[in-house]
């Protein structure tokens, strides 16, 4: 079985890279949407309730079903990477959104009041006070999103997006556990490395 795993060698590397690309791109886009949305949500309570509800609903849709729902849609749907990225993004948004929101709303009321009373503008308060103080929470949100996306991205192979899921689906179809492991082990390793690495960054930033 070890020999067979080695024979997958070059393919493991190329699929791992493909997998990484899927995850990195999805997290990047999700952060680009979730962080500004969370900032807006800290300013308006009604928006907060509405968007948080929506994000929660998206999270409850089973991932395989979400990929299925997206397939027949014009422009955003269809077989391929872009559909997978949209679905992965939708899942990654919630943890980033929630943590950014909690991080900013968690800034000590006395600190915020001082910032206002000292004559800081809302933009200055956001950039110099709220975001730096919320940074550890935001990083934690990115970490959770990244680790879960690495797992969910294996399912993206079902709609032709590639990645390590290719091995897993082929292995299941041909009842070949070595092939399943060739997809599962690198995916798990990637998740562990991402978790540890991002946690390290998180600790460094929050102790500064």
């Amino acid at each position, binding site marked *: 079985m070890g020999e067979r795993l080695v024979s997958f060698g070059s393919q493991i590397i190329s699929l791992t890279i493909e997998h990484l690309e899927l995850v990195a791109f999805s997290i990047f886009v999700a952060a680009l949407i979730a962080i500004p949305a969370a900032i807006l949500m800290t300013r308006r309570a009604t928006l907060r309730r509405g968007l948080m509800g929506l994000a929660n609903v998206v999270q409850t849709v089973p991932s395989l079903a979400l990929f299925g729902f997206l397939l027949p849609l014009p422009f955003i749907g269809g077989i391929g990477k872009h559909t997978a990225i949209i679905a992965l993004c939708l899942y990654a948004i919630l943890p980033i959104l929630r943590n950014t929101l909690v991080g900013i709303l968690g800034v*000590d009321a*006395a*600190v*915020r*009041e*001082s*910032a*206002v*009373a*000292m*004559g*800081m*503008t809302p933009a*200055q308060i956001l950039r110099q*006070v709220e975001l*730096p*103080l919320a940074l550890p929470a935001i990083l934690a949100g990115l970490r959770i999103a990244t680790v879960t996306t690495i797992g969910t991205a294996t399912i993206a192979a079902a709609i032709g997006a590639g990645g390590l899921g290719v091995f897993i689906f082929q292995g299941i179809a041909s009842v070949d556990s070595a092939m399943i492991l060739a997809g599962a082990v690198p995916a798990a390793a990637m998740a562990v490395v991402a978790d540890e690495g991002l946690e390290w960054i998180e600790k460094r930033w929050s102790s*500064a």
Partner: protein
Amino acid sequence: MEVRNLSHRIGERWVLNNISLTVCAGETVVLLGRSGCGKTTLLKCINRLIDPTQGEILFNGRSTPEWDLFRMRRQIGYVIQDTGLFPHWTVAANAGLVPRLENWGAEAIQKRVNLLLEAVGLAPAEYAARYPRQLSGGQKQRVGIARALAADPPLLLMDEPFAALDPITRFELQKHFRALRTTMQKAALFVTHDVREALMLATRIVLLKDGSIDLVATPGNFLSGTTDEARAFLASLEEGWGSAS
């Protein structure tokens, strides 16, 4: 700074009722009153953390809504009980905030910060690079005062700045503040519920009761104050001394 016929309503309740008072340079007016009497609300109306329902506040002769909001706040020092220091900034960065907002040069800011840390009794060499979490409660409050004084504002607003400190540290800071005030000639409006603090620091005491001014007196005259509320505060003072001796 002058407050004219100020009233403020929250829901159905008038928390401030037709307040008028003036604070001049070199003066420390102490707003004394029980919790919930509206003294903090009054303070927050002045730098427009709260916009009052009725009445007018003049700062340097101009009505506060006519001022550019941010420029005005930068000319009003503000010190609160919880200090509200920025935990991710050093002592020097905290104290230099307002000069930085006002785009002073780096050198001028550093000079000013050192001067002020010196003035509040914190040696810059030892404390400038520390973070707020590395300070005691009294030291944090000293930084809070330095931050409020940084851009040399003509007016200081202080909301029970020493209330959370232990009695010895509180007494030290009160003495220090009294000395600073004499050298700096600021107008200060100081909120407290501690009658001893009021007597020690005030040039004038304004006693608030249920959102209205109950009595205005110098500390000397306050001791013979005849309103019920003044008597109640004086009784607490005598009781306190009686049990201490």
